[in-house]
């Protein structure tokens, strides 16, 4: 069973991560690079202003304090092929990580999974990991104004966990009480509310930010369909061999 789960997830995650890297190269990456032009232009002056107005307000990628500015800047890949390479590696690791979670769910579900039903599982992954958190924390371009990082990350985990358990109640439990509980659980993180920045308006034009949010969600849908199909296909194939 170990071998079947890990072989399926490694292969599907690698191919899915590689595939989505090609899609990102033509969709989200050009928007990120475009947004960075605005971010770099105004981050210094905007950060100074926001520090004075509200010390809790964080400009995405802006240095939070004067001390951090003086600190030596951490390594980052150079623009061009090096940056593309590291983005691709990160996408592949993300792909394998999500594939492991998806295939673990195949295994626990006790149902028959193939390429076709894998796509449905992939869509569930999209709903849980991308769509639900996007309602509270829309995908952000570099330079967007955001609330502090740790509360946003915590809310993201809360939303993903609540949506996953809620969806499980809707799909795998029978009875009205489970349906109601599932819906309430899925709505809960949004009723609590995601941390929001104290003010809106960043360096990046809203048209560009809106375009990026759409591009991020569309590519996430492509990624999850692809990952679901690949995982389901390999899961079935490795199952017949063992």
């Amino acid at each position, binding site marked *: *069973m*170990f071998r079947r*789960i*890990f072989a399926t*997830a490694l292969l599907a995650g690698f191919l899915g991560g590689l595939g989505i890297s090609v899609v*990102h190269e033509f969709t*989200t*990456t050009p928007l*990120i690079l475009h947004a960075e032009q605005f971010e770099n232009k105004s981050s210094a002056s905007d950060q100074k202003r926001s520090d004075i107005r509200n010390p809790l307000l*964080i400009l*995405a*990628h802006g240095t939070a304090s004067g001390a951090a500015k003086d600190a030596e800047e*951490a*390594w*980052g*890949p150079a623009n061009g092929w090096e*940056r593309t390479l*590291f*983005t691709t*590696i*990160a*996408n592949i*690791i*993300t792909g*394998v*990580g*999500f*594939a*492991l*979670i998806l*295939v*673990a*769910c195949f*295994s*626990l579900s006790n149902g028959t999974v193939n390429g076709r039903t894998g796509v449905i599982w992939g869509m569930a992954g999209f709903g849980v990991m*991308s769509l639900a*958190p*996007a309602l509270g*924390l*829309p*995908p*952000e*371009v*570099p330079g967007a104004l*955001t609330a502090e*990082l740790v509360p*946003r*990350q915590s*809310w*993201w985990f809360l939303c993903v966990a609540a949506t996953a358990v809620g969806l499980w109640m809707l799909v795998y439990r029978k009875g009205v009480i489970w349906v109601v509980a599932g819906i309430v659980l899925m709505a809960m993180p949004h009723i609590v509310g995601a941390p929001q920045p104290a003010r809106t308006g960043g360096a990046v034009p809203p048209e560009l930010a809106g375009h*990026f949010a759409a591009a*991020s*969600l569309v*590519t*996430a849908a492509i*990624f999850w369909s692809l990952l679901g199909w690949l995982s389901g296909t390999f899961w079935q194939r490795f199952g017949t061999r063992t």
Partner: protein
Amino acid sequence: MKEQTAKTQDVVVATSSKIMPAVVALLFGAFLIVGVGFAHSDTIHNAAHDSRHSFAFPCH
């Protein structure tokens, strides 16, 4: 009675041998996602920067 106990043990073994690999995969998958998408290290952030934004992980 003995037969029934043996059967129950079989079921327990079958269930745990099925659940254990899935739980390990789930935890390892979550570990990879936290590393790539959420780790606060500046170096990891810079290396995975475009990936974090594209996948809409909360990013500073």
